[in-house]
């Protein structure tokens, strides 16, 4: 199936064909819908989607309706990578035994199903080396069950289980480094992407599909309800996440880091935070220390990536 999907330069290069049908029940402005729509414009041939339980699943597969114009499989919350492993290996052996058509397998999983409850099955699949692309749409909390904290929720963010209380101002822990975890499995390709940079996102999916073995793509998915902002601002907020260095867009290819979107003059983090209800309390004087810590984390992470890129050290 190689070579059927050239890289795109402008949105006009994107195929018109939609694999993700309109009429699904995701919220207006949902970042996840944008990610899925864009990623599926990058497929290069027969493709199967695997999706664990979550917003995307419940909003697109309510029987008897489906938004999926290609094969779609949901089994449970924590096992998408394992289900995908089985599909990949079954198709490989059936291709060998009776010429079943080869298919690409793409997982779309939320941060709960990836950072937390699904981390073990993801790790197992990455270690075993199945040929699959795992895309995590990260809206930084358990949005489907009502905005509870996850391992992907950033420091200080308010969720329904890490509320901005009088004593404890939001989540007290920092976000897990998913790409670090993925790269530590020595997989050939791991990258982040943002809906604010759709060409980069689509090209990363295309690039990943051409690379044999397991690939992980981590995409920030702004959530209107969970983050607290008007539906029209999703892409704007995603862009600010990149421009403030809150969400660096980079890739790790065979262990080498490359920052894809350079942010030489970052905007103040407050510009990203102030648009979102989940961070409102961080801008109050009494929580200045949390804001400072969050800024420090963001800068440290950026510096780390710059050093890794410059040194060419294999992570």
């Amino acid at each position, binding site marked *: 199936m190689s070579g059927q999907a050239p890289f795109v330069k402008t949105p006009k290069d994107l195929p018109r064909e939609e694999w993700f049908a309109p009429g699904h029940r995701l919220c207006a402005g949902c970042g996840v819908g944008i990610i899925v729509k864009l990623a599926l414009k990058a497929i290069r*041939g*027969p*493709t*199967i989607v*695997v999706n664990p339980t979550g917003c995307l*699943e*419940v909003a697109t*597969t*309510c*029987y*008897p309706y*489906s938004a*999926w*114009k*290609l*094969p*779609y*499989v*949901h*089994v*449970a919350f*924590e*096992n998408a*990578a*394992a*289900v*995908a*492993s*089985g*599909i990949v*290996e*079954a*198709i*490989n*052996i*059936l291709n*060998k*035994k*009776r010429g*079943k*058509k080869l*298919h690409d397998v793409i997982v779309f999983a939320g941060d709960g199903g990836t950072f937390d409850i699904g981390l*073990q*099955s993801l*790790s*197992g699949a990455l*270690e*075993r080396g199945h040929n699959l692309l795992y895309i995590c749409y990260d809206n930084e909390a358990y949005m489907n069950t009502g905005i509870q904290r996850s391992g992907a929720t950033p420091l200080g963010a308010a969720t329904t289980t890490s509320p901005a209380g009088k004593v404890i101002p939001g989540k007290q822990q920092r976000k897990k480094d998913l790409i670090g975890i993925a790269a530590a499995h020595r997989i050939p390709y791991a990258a982040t992407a943002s809906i604010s940079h759709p060409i980069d996102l689509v090209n990363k999916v295309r690039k990943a599909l051409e690379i044999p073995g397991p690939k992980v793509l981590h995409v920030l998915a702004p959530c209107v309800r969970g983050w607290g902002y008007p539906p029209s601002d999703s892409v704007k907020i995603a862009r600010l996440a990149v421009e403030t260095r809150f969400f660096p867009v980079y890739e790790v290819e065979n262990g080498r880091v490359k920052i894809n979107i350079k942010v030489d003059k970052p905007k103040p983090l407050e510009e990203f935070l102030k648009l979102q209800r989940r961070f409102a309390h961080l801008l109050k004087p009494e929580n200045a220390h949390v804001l400072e810590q969050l800024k420090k984390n963001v800068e440290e992470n950026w510096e780390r990536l710059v050093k890794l890129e410059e040194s060419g050290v294999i992570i």
Partner: protein
Amino acid sequence: MAQVQRLAILGDEAVALAVKQSNVDVIAAYPITPQTIIVEKLSEYVANGELDAAFIQAESEHSALSVCVGAGLAGARVYTSTCSQGLALMHEIVYAASSMRVPMVMTIVNRSLNAPLNIHCEHGDVMAERDSGWVHLFATSVQEAYDLTFIAFKLSEHPDVLLPVSVNMDAFILSHSIEPLTPISDEDAAKFLPPKKYEYEIDFDNPMTYGTMALPDTYMEFKMQLKEAVENAEKVFADVVEEYAKISGRKYWYFNSYMADDADALVIVLGSTYGTLKTAAKKLREEGLKVGVLGLTMFRPFPEKQLVEVLRNVKAVIVMDRAYSYGGLGGPLYSDVVATLYRNGIRIPAKNVVYGLGGRDFKLDEAEAVLRMAAQGAREGGFDTHVQWWGVKA
């Protein structure tokens, strides 16, 4: 029916041989005692090129069964094996596998559940999956564990069934015992199990959505279809065992029975204890005691109709359970038999003997004592108690 060499073989190895001869495409498992030999042997077959299949050692049983669901939907003939804690960890996906109607076969090497930690024989592991919509078969010997593997694949992939099937075999008593085995030939196996045809196989050219959400307005209809599929398995089983008899010369039925037809007192059991009871019954028959033994091969769907034919003619029954429903009315098999008696208007005394938990030996003299107790119940028209935990130290 081709001529084959008779073997002396370990239970686990006999199962692995059957899986190999079933021409599986994908095997996914996580090692757990006493199932390990099955997966070790299968990985050996694959590594040596004797079996053309993908062998995937998942990072947990939960993932192993998830791999099987994915592979099964993609059209592969899939196999897994586990027991005890592993089966408990799979629990969530056990229900998904049956409700998503994924054919597959799982050998459950029945072992007790923690706590306390114990690796020996008990049926509590599969009983926790009793109501999952799987077909559950029980082997009483190594030969049966081997034969039932083929039968399970055939039943599982039948278009009227399309369900996962478990073949249960007693931990160590069968898994680690060397017993004689008359295998079927590879040719007969291939004839009995041609490559899997699965109408709903994942295919880009025929895109379907698997594992949808169903709200209260449609959920019950999904479950009704599951109920009907499990019930279909009862009918299809009769055809499958008939066909298997043609290639093996061995005729299976919903249960094994020994001298049950003219028995006054019957003992019903699951698994290898059937053999022990049979030997004891033989001796008591020589004394003139009209005892019989019945070992269920099919536990789910529960073969009520076939069982009633036997129960109508006996005067008392003892049901032996190697599992227990704590706080319930007895062991799970006992509850089923009592319900069968009641709803078929058979008014005979029934007693439950709970035995062998955590692998406690149940010896020949004990089997004899249980049979005598059954005979006494038949003679006196009743038992002293409903449930007796057998051989518990004071």
